């Protein structure tokens, strides 16, 4: 699963995901992509599930780019623990996603296969998404 190698702070505050994405909103590598239509957190497990599903459906054909990275630690208290005694340890890593962000890109596969692969990938995510393809020059 994806996670940072080094971090500046072991635990961070939760924060809010406000507004639309300004970076990572265009297809930069592949011909097809998956665009987030809602804001939210995507966990490292969900990213991995999305990747495995796509690779599996395409039978390792084509090329995949994951355009997001889970760099935010989310802490979790152990089960059956009383409240207090400080903040819990890092349980998972998430990528805060703003709407409009491209999550995944694909290349080297027929359009119908790309559409189906990304539809399957989207079922692993907690947010609404849209399939997009490269068209036009500008």
């Amino acid at each position, binding site marked *: 699963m994806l996670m940072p190698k080094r971090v500046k702070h072991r635990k961070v505050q939760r924060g809010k995901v406000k507004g639309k994405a*300004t970076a990572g909103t265009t297809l930069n590598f592949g011909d097809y992509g998956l665009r987030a239509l809602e804001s939210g957190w995507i966990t490292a497990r969900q990213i*991995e599930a999305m990747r495995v599903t796509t690779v599996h459906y395409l039978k390792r054909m084509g090329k995949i780019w994951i355009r997001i990275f889970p760099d935010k630690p989310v802490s979790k208290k152990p089960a059956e623990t009383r409240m207090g005694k400080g903040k819990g340890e890092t349980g998972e890593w998430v990528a805060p996603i703003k709407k409009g962000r491209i999550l995944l890109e694909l290349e080297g596969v027929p359009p119908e296969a790309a559409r189906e692969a990304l539809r399957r990938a989207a079922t692993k995510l907690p947010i609404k998404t849209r399939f997009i393809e490269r068209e036009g020059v500008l």
Partner: protein
Amino acid sequence: MKIEVMKRKEVGSNRVKKIRREGWIPGVIYGHGEKSYHIKLRDDDLIKLIHELHSEATLITLNFEGKELQSIIREVTRDPLTEKLLHVDFQHIHEDEEVTVHVIVEIKGESLGVKDGGILNVEHRYLTVRCLPKDMPEEIVIDISNLQIGDSYHVSDIELPLNVKIEEDQTATMVNVLSPRKIVEVKPVEEELLAEGVEEPELISEEEAEAKEAEESKEKKEETEE
């Protein structure tokens, strides 16, 4: 291609939002050593123009305050969600001055490698070229029909007129044909995910502290040796 543009007095996000609601698209015209102007144009006209454009390197004649300006579209801003046009940048170009433009690369033919099951990998979809406006190529066509699996088409293989200079690294790969990957049994997602635990990443501050300590101990050693 011709398009009518008007001078724009509405500046600032609120006023610009208002003109967008009225069917205008805000933009700007700039050129080398010239004053820039805020402009607006009808959204239908711009959508039609962009639809017809084959490449960014296409000369567009702007009808602006009774003058005809030769220009190219430098940038188009779209809404990331709705993909509606938000803003357009035109660059006024001079006939005798070289310009740097991104030209679209058109891939022609089906390579032999792809027919044998290889994967076509496109590294560059655009090429940056520098030339006079009259020599601007609308597209660069590359023929890949002879590419076998493992072969590459490099920037140096592209044939262009002498007065068009390519601003990219000559050894860069444009297109290559990768060998097909073997189908390997993919582990079920849950199993794979459970197998890996969450590890702790290193803290940058700790690393720095360790480095400092190491440096200090070195200095101490040197002092004692002296």
